[in-house]
């Protein structure tokens, strides 16, 4: 098949491209490199089955030849990135989604929208199910992302209902792995970099707040399974297993035995207090998917990546 991936040089996008190429598909990767990084796809430079299209999805895209599937992942995705690129974020998710759906209509391609747990907004504790309408502020400081994703879902459904476009929606929860930008300010990369640099590992508050990170290889498997399934409504993809921040710090330290770092507790709130946990019953049932990579194994891949890339 010939598959288009937007956000191809991003963290999840670049892994998705690798996965699809490994399956023998031809892949056209679209990225404007606003937050995507060239090094994430540098290894594909000589791959004849991969084409890079430098393009901003908020402009219409025409592409020669057939397109069988479109994965629309393009958007600044970390709180730091979407705060720095407010208008670009809302445009990538609104105009960008419309443009990619138009391309899907013209080419007859199946279309998958990479939505996010962000659509649930500020919800109370407990795992989120897909039928939760969420509690998202349309005019707040993170709306460019949360509302952008909600609108993108509404667009996918509009094209599906009116034009019969073959659409898919996945809601991606917290994901980690190699090629996360270490400068993004996410807790796992922060801890790994601190451990590798022998700096104190800073835990905010008592460290009992939790995360439920999903390894990127599991996530990519889930995204592809959703594309292959015959189901148009949103499917949560993420890891329901919770781990406390302190556990994360200890786990990372134990995987870097040479580190002289110590865990230090710092007053204040964690950067992102709104961490959500998925209910993945739908993914289990419809996609026969659940995360398989144990946290410790997953963390090793991040540590290896940060080491090998000489980021220390």
């Amino acid at each position, binding site marked *: 098949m010939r598959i288009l991936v937007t956000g191809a040089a991003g963290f999840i996008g670049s892994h998705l491209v690798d996965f699809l190429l490994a399956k023998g598909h031809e892949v056209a990767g679209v990225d404007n490199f606003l937050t995507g990084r060239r090094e994430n796809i540098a290894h594909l430079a000589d791959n004849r089955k991969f084409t890079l299209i430098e393009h901003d999805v908020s402009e219409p895209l025409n592409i020669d030849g057939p397109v069988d599937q479109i994965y629309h992942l393009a958007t600044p995705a970390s709180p730091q990135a979407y705060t720095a690129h*407010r*208008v670009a*974020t*809302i*445009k990538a998710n*609104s*105009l960008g989604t*419309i443009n990619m759906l138009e391309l899907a209509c013209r080419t007859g391609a199946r279309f998958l929208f990479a939505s996010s747990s962000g*659509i649930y*907004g*500020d919800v109370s504790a407990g795992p989120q199910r897909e039928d939760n*309408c*969420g*509690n*998202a*502020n*349309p*005019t707040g400081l993170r*709306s*460019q992302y949360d*509302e*952008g994703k*909600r*609108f993108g*879902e*509404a*667009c996918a*459904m*509009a*094209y599906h*209902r*009116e*034009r019969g476009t073959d659409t898919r*929606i996945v809601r991606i929860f917290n994901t980690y792995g190699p090629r996360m930008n270490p400068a993004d300010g996410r807790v796992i990369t922060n801890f790994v970099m601190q451990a590798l640099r022998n700096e104190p590992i800073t835990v905010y508050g008592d460290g009992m707040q939790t995360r439920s990170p999903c390894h990127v290889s599991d996530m990519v498997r889930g995204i592809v399974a959703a594309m292959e399934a015959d189901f148009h*409504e*949103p499917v949560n993809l993420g890891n329901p297993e919770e781990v406390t921040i302190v556990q994360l710090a200890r786990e990372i330290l134990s995987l870097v035995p040479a580190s002289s770092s110590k865990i230090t507790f710092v007053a204040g709130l964690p950067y992102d207090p709104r961490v959500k946990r998925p209910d993945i019953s739908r993914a289990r049932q419809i996609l026969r998917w659940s995360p398989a990579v144990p946290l410790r194994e997953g963390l090793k891949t991040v540590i290896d990546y940060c080491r090998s890339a000489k980021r220390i």
Partner: protein
Amino acid sequence: MTTVKRILVTGGAGFLGSHLCERLTAQGHDVICLDNFFTSQKSNISHLLGRPNFELIRHDIVHPIWLEVDEVYNLACPASPVHYQFNPIKTVKTSVMGAINMLGLARRTGAKVLQASTSEVYGDPTVHPQPESYWGNVNPIGVRACYDEGKRCAETLFFDYHRSEGINIRVVRIFNTYGPRMHPYDGRVISNFIVQALSGQDITIYGDGTQTRSFCYVDDLIEGMIRMMNGPDDFIGPVNLGNPAEFTVRQLAEMVLELTGARVKIVHLPPVADDPRQRRPDITLARQKLSWEPTVPLREGLAKTVEYFRSIDLKSFRRPTPSRAHNGL
């Protein structure tokens, strides 16, 4: 009247837009009415066409437009469920691409731009009445999402352009509004009831009729919108504009029966998908900041609306179908 302003009204030939154009033209401003006549009627603005300070442009705001103006009222959007359910793609595009194009115009010209948002951003609310701080309960994949999320996303765009680009914005959330020039076949409860009564058909209520609505007369609404546009730059909204007086759909049906004197029955049909149980604005903020509140009682406004519907030839209006919205008269 001190300064004459150049004012662009998108959706200017629609129900609300035409009243706004009329008011601004009467105030002496230089008014540009922009409309693609997808759901609007030429008859709504034909009486303004000869005026030297009124200009009509047929244009779809999904495409950029270059104009020199001081103020923009962005009202263009298919606004009734019969349209957005037949034309969800047109609806999402108009909302979002229209907002982007008007914000782009504002950035180029330095114009102040007001977004006509809607109470639909609250979805099926769990809080009554709804203050502006309520974040809503909208199903992002429901049949009404094209409108609800389109309008929410437009608000987001307005705030993002304001925060990142310093655009001078205003956002009003318009609740149920009624009055002359509502389209007889827009599927709204008031026009439905009046058209049914005047054409001798039974009045149909979806559900049991205990769901409540609040109805604002169009003159009150336009006054609120103009006050918001002309208010201080540090009050950008969103601000609710609507009438907090609450009536059940059943009460409304009975009032229409009484005012039209029609000899028809009230009958019940199954409820429609995602139809909110209750919606009523909290207008504390508008009262405080704009010294605004509705003044026209429902009975009085309804009487004027019935009079309007009696004056038009219902046969010259068409019902929307999946392949077309209303044709412009």
